[in-house]
Structures are given as structure tokens and as C-alpha cells.
């Protein structure tokens, strides 16, 4: 088998040593200075100018140099596709997998598969649950436990693969705004109790590493420890946002399945995600079956019929990119975190509101309360406000509606109850001006006495 150390791309700037997979862990000592602001700007010059891009969480971002690497792979395929298929594709996929293995500290590359996105990973995990249930091993009272704010696609996957086989779902309320990990742990324990009612077994716990909306970092290690103590059969961590936002050590975390998208915070093009399976036996399958069926998920996922695999091949080029920054990916993560906390704090002070979680419970995104006077009374209002900000202010930021709990914990500002939040992000291309524009736009709405329901409907 061709060694994955082979470097046949001509886009690597720092020489052959880049194919050393250890570049993921240690930023290379280099005589070059860290990447400058103008160069960062150049790398993201394809972003629409004038847009304050505060929603990196949804669709991510990809620098020009990684896009160029992707184009180079696409061209190789177009030039001579048979040669590419027979000689180039597999070693390149293996190189990417090996690089990702280092980043997430998996024990062996056999546990690491590349798939399109976290949604595909959810289908894979839940199909395997469905197959096990079909063999008749489950009882009527067995359950799947997950957070109520789990990503909609995951919920729908449960509807598709768990509900038909008779499994029921227990939803754990995520307290929000949240003040500490303990609040989450406490709710989760309650959820597990419910899941075990009437002699039922919790067959699968789905735990977000970083929830999507509202966005909060979940204490996964703690929750998994509790799961193991409580006899939960399988644990699936949906870390869609995790890679490039916080440190991931899948051995430490101890889940059976762990997925993360690389295109959100790890600078890959759309789209590629990593699915880690603790047990690399052959019980999981890619739903699209090819000639590789039965050879293990990593090999099955490396060929799901004829497609453009170029986004799966650029992980080494991504590492090159992040290592141009001081501190590599760790440096980027730290600066993103510090930046988003600082800007979040600036906004909440200007608006007189709150942060949705303490700084230590966020990574590169933070929830900032919107002034109650804006009257975010439901999801429709939230969407209206988001569209208004996009169309009239060229600000892209998702808006979240949180219903009141009707207790003394409901957050307030000086005018009333806070029910709306923006989820702001910080990535290397952001400038302080992006956040000041948001601050001003919201303050302008207040000055004009506008409420969400009065905004133009997109």
C-alpha cells in the first residue's frame, strides 16, 4: 500500500515535511512570521465585502489557499479520472484520515471515517441502532435520550430510524440561559431516570458537544461518565461544531461514536466531516452501498459511488493553513474564544442585557441577549429580525427565541423579560467593526421604537 506520507500535491508551501501527520499537534517552528492581517484578508477576499459575517457556525468558511488545493485535486481527476481512481484517491483519503486521527487523538486510523456532514453520520449511527432493534434484542420500554435542542436533522433521523421500530425518545431540557455545568448535569440525570422507567434500557444517548441553538458547550465527559454508570448502551456525541472550536480527545471523552464537521470551524470546503467509531467492527455501514460494502466504514465511506471527493482530500492543506497562524489551531481557537467573549460582553453592556452562558461554557460562539423592547415573541419574530439585519444592514447573524419558564430565573433587562438572543461567532476573518455594526443596528431599532413584528416580512 502506498505510504500516506507520499506528497504528490504541489500546493504545499513549506516542503515535504508537511506530510508528517504530527503537524496537527505541534505548530511548526518556522522562520516565517505568523500570517499577517492583510494576508488573512486576502485569504477570505471571496467573502462578500460589506457583510458583517457573524454566523460562521452555520456554513463555516474556507480560505483561498484551501480552495486552490481543492481545485488542484479536481483537476487531477478531470485530467485522467481512471488513473485518479486507481492510483491517487485511496492514498489521499488515507492521508486526510490520518491527519484527522491526530487532531482528535483517536487510537487508530481504522476508527476514523470521512463522510459528508454530521447529518450523514447521524443516519449511519441510527441505522445501526435500527438494525440491532430489528434483530429483536430490544424491549418495549427501551429509549433514546437526547437534548430537546438537538439539531433538527438528528430529531428527524430518530423519527425515521427509531420510531418505526418502536423506540421512544426522552428529551432532556437544556436550561437556558445557563449558569453552570451542574445545571446541565442535573437535567441530564433526570432524563436518564426517565429513560429507564418501567425496566427500560437506554439504548442510545445523543449528546451535543456544542449545541447549535441555543449554543452552549456541554460537559460531555461528565455526562458520559454518568451514562456508563447508568448502563447506557451506546453514546453518540454530536460534535458538529467542535473541530476547530475546542480541543477534542475522543479517547478521553469516551463516546462510542463522535462526529464533527470540518467545514464549520476547521476551514474545509463544503463539505466533509469526521465520524469516529470506538469499536471499529463491521456493524456500522454507510447507507450508500458500493463494491466496498463489508470492508469497514472508513473504506465504505471512501467510495460511495462516483462523486467529487476533493473536499475529503484537502486536510493536509488545511493543516498548512492553520499552521501559518501563531499557535496553529490552538492559537486560533484561543483567539476566537477570547474575541467572541470580548465582543459579546461589549454588546450585552451596550444593550443592557445578558450573556446566555458564562464564558467558560462557550467556544467560538456566544449567545447575547437582545433588548426586551425588541419583543422577540416567537420563532417568526426571530426570523424576521434575522432577515431584516441581512437585507437592511448586511449583517448575517442567527437570532434565537427562548420562551420564558415563568419562574424567578427568567432573565430580565430594565424594560422587561429577555426572550431573544443573537448567536455571534468569531473566526479569523472577523474585525471589531462587524460587532459594532450589530450593536448600532440594534440600538437604532430601539431608538426608532421598532419591534420584531413590525419589521418587513422577507
Amino acid at each position, binding site marked *: 500500500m502506498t505510504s500516506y506520507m507520499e506528497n504528490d500535491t504541489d500546493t504545499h508551501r513549506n516542503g515535504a515535511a508537511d506530510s508528517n501527520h504530527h503537524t496537527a499537534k505541534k505548530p511548526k517552528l518556522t522562520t516565517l512570521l505568523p500570517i499577517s492581517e492583510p494576508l488573512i484578508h486576502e485569504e477570505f477576499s471571496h467573502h462578500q465585502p460589506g457583510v458583517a459575517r457573524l*454566523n460562521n457556525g452555520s456554513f463555516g468558511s474556507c480560505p483561498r489557499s484551501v480552495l486552490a488545493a481543492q481545485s488542484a485535486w479536481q483537476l487531477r*481527476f478531470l485530467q485522467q479520472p481512471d488513473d485518479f481512481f486507481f492510483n491517487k484517491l485511496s492514498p489521499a483519503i488515507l492521508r486526510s484520515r490520518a491527519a484527522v486521527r491526530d487532531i482528535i487523538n483517536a487510537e487508530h486510523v481504522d476508527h476514523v471515517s470521512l463522510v459528508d*456532514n454530521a447529518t450523514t453520520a447521524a443516519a449511519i449511527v441510527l441505522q445501526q441502532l435500527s438494525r440491532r432493534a430489528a434483530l429483536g434484542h430490544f424491549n418495549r420500554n427501551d429509549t433514546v435520550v437526547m437534548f430537546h435542542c438537538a439539531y433538527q436533522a438528528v430529531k428527524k433521523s430518530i423519527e425515521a430510524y427509531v420510531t418505526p421500530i418502536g423506540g421512544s425518545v426522552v428529551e432532556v431540557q437544556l436550561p437556558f440561559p445557563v449558569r453552570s455545568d451542574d445545571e446541565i448535569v442535573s437535567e441530564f440525570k433526570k432524563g436518564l431516570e426517565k429513560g429507564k422507567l418501567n425496566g427500560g434500557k437506554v439504548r442510545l444517548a445523543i449528546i451535543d458537544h456544542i449545541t447549535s441553538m441555543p449554543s452552549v458547550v456541554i460537559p460531555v465527559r461528565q455526562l458520559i461518565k454518568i451514562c456508563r454508570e447508568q448502563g447506557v448502551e451506546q453514546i453518540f456525541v454530536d460534535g458538529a461544531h467542535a473541530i476547530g472550536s475546542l480541543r477534542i480527545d475522543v479517547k478521553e471523552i469516551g463516546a462510542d461514536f463522535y462526529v464533527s464537521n470540518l467545514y464549520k470551524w476547521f476551514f474545509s470546503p463544503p463539505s466533509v466531516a469526521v465520524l469516529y467509531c470506538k469499536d471499529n467492527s463491521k456493524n456500522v455501514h454507510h447507507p450508500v452501498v458500493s463494491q466496498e*460494502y463489508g470492508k469497514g466504514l472508513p473504506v465504505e465511506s471512501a467510495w460511495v459511488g*462516483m462523486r467529487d471527493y476533493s473536499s475529503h482530500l484537502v486536510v493536509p492543506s488545511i493543516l498548512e493553513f492553520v499552521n501559518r497562524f501563531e499557535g496553529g489551531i490552538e492559537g486560533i481557537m484561543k483567539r476566537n474564544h477570547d474575541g467572541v467573549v470580548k465582543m459579546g460582553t461589549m454588546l450585552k453592556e451596550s444593550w443592557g442585557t445578558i450573556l446566555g452562558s458564562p464564558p467558560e461554557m462557550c467556544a467560538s460562539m456566544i449567545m447575547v441577549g437582545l433588548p426586551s423592547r425588541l419583543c422577540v415573541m416567537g420563532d417568526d419574530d426571530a426570523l424576521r429580525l434575522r432577515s431584516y439585519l441581512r437585507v437592511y444592514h448586511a449583517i*448575517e447573524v442567527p437570532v434565537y427565541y427562548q420562551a420564558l419558564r415563568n419562574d424567578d430565573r427568567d432573565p430580565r433587562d430594565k424594560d422587561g423579560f429577555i426572550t431573544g438572543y443573537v448567536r455571534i461567532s468569531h473566526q479569523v476573518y472577523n474585525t471589531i467593526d462587524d460587532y459594532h455594526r450589530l450593536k448600532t443596528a440594534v440600538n437604532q431599532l430601539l431608538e426608532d421604537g421598532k419591534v420584531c413584528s413590525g419589521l418587513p416580512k422577507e
Partner: protein
Amino acid sequence: MADQHQNGDTHLSKRTKLSYITDEEIEAEFSHHDPEVARLNNGAFGCCPASVLAAQRQWQLKNLRQPDHFYFNDLKSNLLRSRSIIKELVNAEHVDEISLVDNASTATAIVLQQASWAFHDGTFGKGDAVLVLHHAYGAVKKALEAYVARAGGAIIEVPLPFPLTSENDVVREFRKAVEIGKSESQGGDEENGTANRTRNRIRLAVIDHVTSMPSVVIPVKELVSICREEGVDQVFVDAAHAIGCTRVDMQEIGADFYTSNLHKWFFCPPSVAFLYARRSSKSRDLHHPVVSHEYGNGIAVESSWAGNRDYSAQLVVPAAVDFVNRFEGGIEGIRKRNHDVVVEMGNMLVEAWGTHLGCPPHMSASMVMVGLPPSLGISSDSDALKLRTRLRDHFGVEVPIFFRGPADDHRSVTAYARISRQVYNKVADYYKFRDAVNQLLQDGFTSTAS
């Protein structure tokens, strides 16, 4: 981009002879192909002209520029435009019947997953059968193993003779297989020692439109009729190659499900295919295996969002149509010329080598199976692969080789080359292949020796 697609998409443009694409322009459109390679394997990975690649890049950049705006404002409507064009091209009744997926393998997973559930919930009985052609694509057979066999269904393979002399060869074998499927069960509950003697049903027939290896155009219309006569519940036509190299008409063919890749013969980039699902109660049970928030909104809508990914290949169908309409006769003209030339070149090769074509010309589309000289000594699949590799590495010829099985005597043809013809090919490509084989013969090459 929008104003180019007012009314022209769905009809062949009437152009004057002067404005047809020139040979130089064709060469420029495919200038990214490796010039050292005689590319005779269009069937495997297809091809994509520079102008369609450029259109794809435009879509990719548009998304990267402002992805939220793209998602909320551009994606759905442009996927619908692609689907509408395909609906016209294949004569479907309604655009809801057309879903866009990555490739035929994905479409197969969708159809077979539905069958799998039917076995699980008892709609299909254990031991009920799924019919498939022996020459079905390897991945399809694996999918049958994963989704049907594991769920308790029986698989019946229809043997196909090769070489073939007429459609009757295929029809005859198919009828025989259907009879077998309707009679005593092939599966049964052997583990428990009870032979299942009830009449089992054929629940699904999976029929190729153009088989891959060996490549033959199957009389699908006739086979679908037989299925209807014999009470087969569902018919799924795997037409991975069909669109752009043979006639594709959903009303004429009459299948329940039909899939074809647009990146093989319809000039789209990797990768995009359509899945046609005739509106009926069965189509309501189809789901995309990657479940998103669109779950339950119908297979076409589910397929339009399988999580965040690059949908640009699905968005350039209008650009591909623009491309084919630069040719005289549009896609029909391209098909006809491809067919005529590949048959002509096939005949040239069999005359040069003293062999024969694997099937009559009317059972070929844009590919023909050309018998290889027996003295090449191909006596296994791995010999065939070795020869293919040799041709690629030493002669700059890319062509897939099919081993048909052991011969009766050493003078019989045991292997065939599947040559293709697409608009970028030159006559020199085929002479290069001819000369390469002649050189190998001269050098005393036999596969077993290398």
C-alpha cells in the same frame, strides 16, 4: 446567468449551421483532458466541458460569498430549475417525480431501503424475491445483499448470455427467471428446517437499461411489460449510463423507479443523477437515507437537502443543456454520431484483429464490446486488469477490459474491450488502441507471462 434560461431550456434550440460548435471549440472545451491519453472509457467517469465547469465554479463562489443568503434565496429555486429540465428531458409527468441525488448508487439505496422496510414490516413476505440481471453493476448486487438479503428477501439472478445475437436472448432468459421466481421459493426458512412451499412473489425487479460490463442495451420496455403481466410489484430500472447515450422516455418505459447519472453521458461534473419515481403509493415510502429537517416532505424535497454540502453539480444542468444545444441535433444528434462512430471504430478494430463485436450494433449505444485477440491469453479477471493497466501505463490508452469466462478452445475470444465514443474523441484514439494491441501481440505479450 438567469436571463439565458427564459424559454430555451426545454426545447432543442433551432440553430443555423454556422453557429454550431466547431472542432476547435470542442477541443478547447476538453483541453483539461490529458492529451497523452486515448480516452476510450467515457462510460466509467464521464466527462465535463470547460464551460460547464466554469458554471459550476460560479455557483460554488456564489455560495462561499454569502452562504446564508445562498441557502435562503438561491438554492431551492435553482435545484427546482434543474429538476424541471430533467422532467422535460425524460418525459416525466410531474416535476415531483424527479429527485436529484449524487449518483445511481444513492438512488439504489433509496429504492432498496424502501424494499427493506417492506420486508421488515411484513408487507413483503420472507422469501419473496427480488430479480436482478447477472450483469448488474457490482455495487447494486452489494446493495441487494445489504438491504434485501439481510431483511429476508431472496435474490434471483437472470443469467445473460454474452456474446449476444439479439434481444430475444435477453427476453428469453428474463421470462425463465420470472417463472422460477413465481414458483417454489428460492429462500424459504431453511435454518428452521421448514422448506417454504407456498407460492412466493417477485416484489421487485432491478433491470439495467445499459449494462455496465459487458455493455449491452437491454430491451427495458419489453422486460417491464413482462413484469407487469406477471404481477411483479415494483420495477426499478438502473439506467446509470442511459441519459445522453440512449432514448430515455418514462412514459414509454413504464417503470416505477428509474435512475441515470448525468455525469457519464450528459456533460455534468461529478456528480449528479436523477431518480424518477412514478407518483403512486410506493413513491410515498421513498426516503433519502440521510435524514434532514425535510424528512417527510417527499423524496424530491428530502434529496434537495441532505445536510450541508456542495450542491453545485446539481445546479449546472441548465449549463449542460446549453452545451449540448451547441451541437447539431442537440443531445439526439450527439447520441447518433457517437453511436455511428463507435460502431464504425469497433468494426475497424475487429477487422484488424480478426475478432467480433460482443453484440449487434442496435444493442449498443455509445459503447461497443470489441473482442480481443485470443493470443493475449486473458484467462481471468486479474489478467484483464493487468492488460488494462499495461495499456494505461505503457501505451497511454484508457480502456476497460471484460473477461467473459474460460473459452472452449485457445482460439476463442475470452475478453472484450469496452470502447466508448464521446464528442472529444478522435479517430486517432482508436488507431492508437489498435496499434497498442498489435504491438503487444508482436512482443509476444501474454497476460499470464507478465
